[in-house]
């Protein structure tokens, strides 16, 4: 009997050794710009969050944070969750998450400045903590960073192995006058995140393209 138990336990140990220890989950950190006039776009952001809730699976993590005058703060995280491995529990968590976002959308107010870099640092830290296999920061913003004099963000940041996706990067009035400003702004951000060690930089203005990006391995 003991011999049999030993054989069974050895087999189980073999199976557990064979299991893939790498993380197959993905973590998404979404920054929602609530500064100035861009706060009006928050309804669109809600659609994207709902879409993410419908797409992400059990074991995945999702966090939504707002971009304000100073965004390097846990208080700016509106909602965060790691979905349970049981699909029914995960669905319940998604419902709760949706309710929090609904409440946020109703109460959102515009801020004076836009601290995207602070949000990125905060997002990078959150994603690294999750230990997910695929890490993505979605920036729902016009990518126009405006900082007050006291806020310091002009230093190298680390976004190693994180995919950065800028969503709904609307053109500002000045961009319409001189499109080079818009292109230059995006180019500068690309340079910055690539220097920070990001695995990829993308700009997506059509949500359907986001679907393709999240589904690919």
């Amino acid at each position, binding site marked *: 009997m003991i011999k049999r138990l030993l054989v069974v336990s050895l087999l189980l140990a073999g199976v557990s050794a*064979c299991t893939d220890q790498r993380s197959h989950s993905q973590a998404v950190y979404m920054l929602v710009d609530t500064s100035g006039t861009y706060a009006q776009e928050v309804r669109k952001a809600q659609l994207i969050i709902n879409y993410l809730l419908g797409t992400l699976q*059990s074991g995945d993590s999702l966090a939504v944070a707002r971009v304000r005058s100073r965004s390097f703060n846990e208080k700016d995280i509106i909602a965060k969750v790691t979905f349970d491995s049981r699909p029914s529990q995960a*669905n319940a968590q998604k419902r709760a998450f*949706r309710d929090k976002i609904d409440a946020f959308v109703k109460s959102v107010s515009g801020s004076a400045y836009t601290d995207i870099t602070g949000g990125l640092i905060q997002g990078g830290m959150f994603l690294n903590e999750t230990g997910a296999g695929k890490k993505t920061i979605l920036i729902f913003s016009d990518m126009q960073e405006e900082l007050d004099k006291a806020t310091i963000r002009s230093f190298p940041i680390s976004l190693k192995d994180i995919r950065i996706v800028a969503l709904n990067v609307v053109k500002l009035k000045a961009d319409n006058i001189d499109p080079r400003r818009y292109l230059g702004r995006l180019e500068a951000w690309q340079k910055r995140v690539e220097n920070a060690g990001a695995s990829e930089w993308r700009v997506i203005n059509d949500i359907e393209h986001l679907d393709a990006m999240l589904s690919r391995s």
Partner: protein
Amino acid sequence: MLRAGKGSYFEQRKGDPVSGSFWMIWPNNAVLSAVILFVIAMPFLYAARKLVHELFRSIGNMVGGPLRLGARWLFATARDMKERNKAVLLAHGREEVSQHIEREFERVGALVTRDLEGYPALQRKLLDEITRVEEDYKKCGEVPPASPEWVEALVSVAKIKSDGNEMVQRILEEIKRSVHGIHDKALAEYRRAFESRHKILSGFMPFWRSLDKTFGQVDKKLTGLQDTSSKIDAQMEKYEQINKKTDKAEHALTMSAFTQFAISLLVLLIAVGGALVNFKLIALPFSEMVGAGDYLTATLRMSDVAALVLIFLEATMGLFVMETLRITHLFPIIANMSERMRRRMFWTAVVFLFVFALIEAGLALMRDMLAADRAALVQSLAAAQAAPPDPLLRLIPTTAQMVLGFFLPFALAFVGVPLESFIYSLRTVGGAAVVMLVRMLAFVLRILGNLVRQLFKVLATLYDVTIVLPLLVERMVKAMRNGEAAASRPAGRGT
């Protein structure tokens, strides 16, 4: 720019031994230099002719020999394998045919026990009926009593002449009246006798029918017996052919194996389709039980593996059911079990199968609930709200899934039958394929070996072509010497 003798590159590297022009005897004329070098080399090439030929032959043998040897070995291996395959095929065929014959004999035994066991009773019944019919027939043969003797007397009286004698006439009339009375009586008696015979004859009918029916039954049973015995004859002939190891038997068995392989493969593919449907039904609810976050490989979740294991367990239980019912013979240990043990194992496997079927039905229901929950979530997340589905429409797929979940394990249980055919026919088909592969390989090696040998022969001939001038000179010298020798021989003889 890099052509010989032209351009700055070559000018700079002139005389350099590693450059391409160091061999040029005639500066800036490659062709002439080559011709001169060739002419210089020709005597040496001629001198080395035998050695070079030997070298070519040796290299040809060195490379071609092992290839040909390998080809021969592979051909021999293929032959051995074919013999072994034949032995296995015939042994398997013999076993199959003997089983078939055994079953036919069992059938004959059952037929004899069932039908011919009652034959004595049937025979007795037949004899009784025949005796009865015979007796009745005899009764029919009983003729009515013969006409009385007074007929002769009557004839004599009829000869009497009356001649108008009143007394005679009166006597004759009296006699006539009496005769009429007696005639009527006799006729009535005859009629009664015939009537009774007709009654007896009509009483024959049920017996005839019964006889006909009984004979029909006997005929049917004997024909069935005859059919079975003709089947046994055919199987016995096949068995004899196999025992004689004839090519016809081998061919027939191989063809049968190929057909079995194709059919069993097709049925197995259908079973795999069923297993996939089954997997789809239970994979999602399994993630609810074992979690959806653990992965065995990059794409294979533990929950999927658990679902697959359940399906394999069902298939295994089905296999055991088939084995214990002696439909398949994959496990000799089960076939050799005692009847009691076999029955126990059968019921254990059936109970397991039933439990698995119940679990699957439950999981199918759970899957439907989870899918509905997810659909509701997605709907609530979507901007546009859709109308709630008809309860009946919801009920039909749920019921269908549960029924499928319950019955698929039982359907999968039958997979053992095609699996057995597949495994047995795979030995023959696989063996034939391997033999063909080995033969093809041997053929390729043989061709390669011949090619190499021929190639070196061609190289030797090409070598001779390059030294054609010294060879011509050699031939001329030889011809001259032969001429001189021929001329000197007769002169020598003369002196």
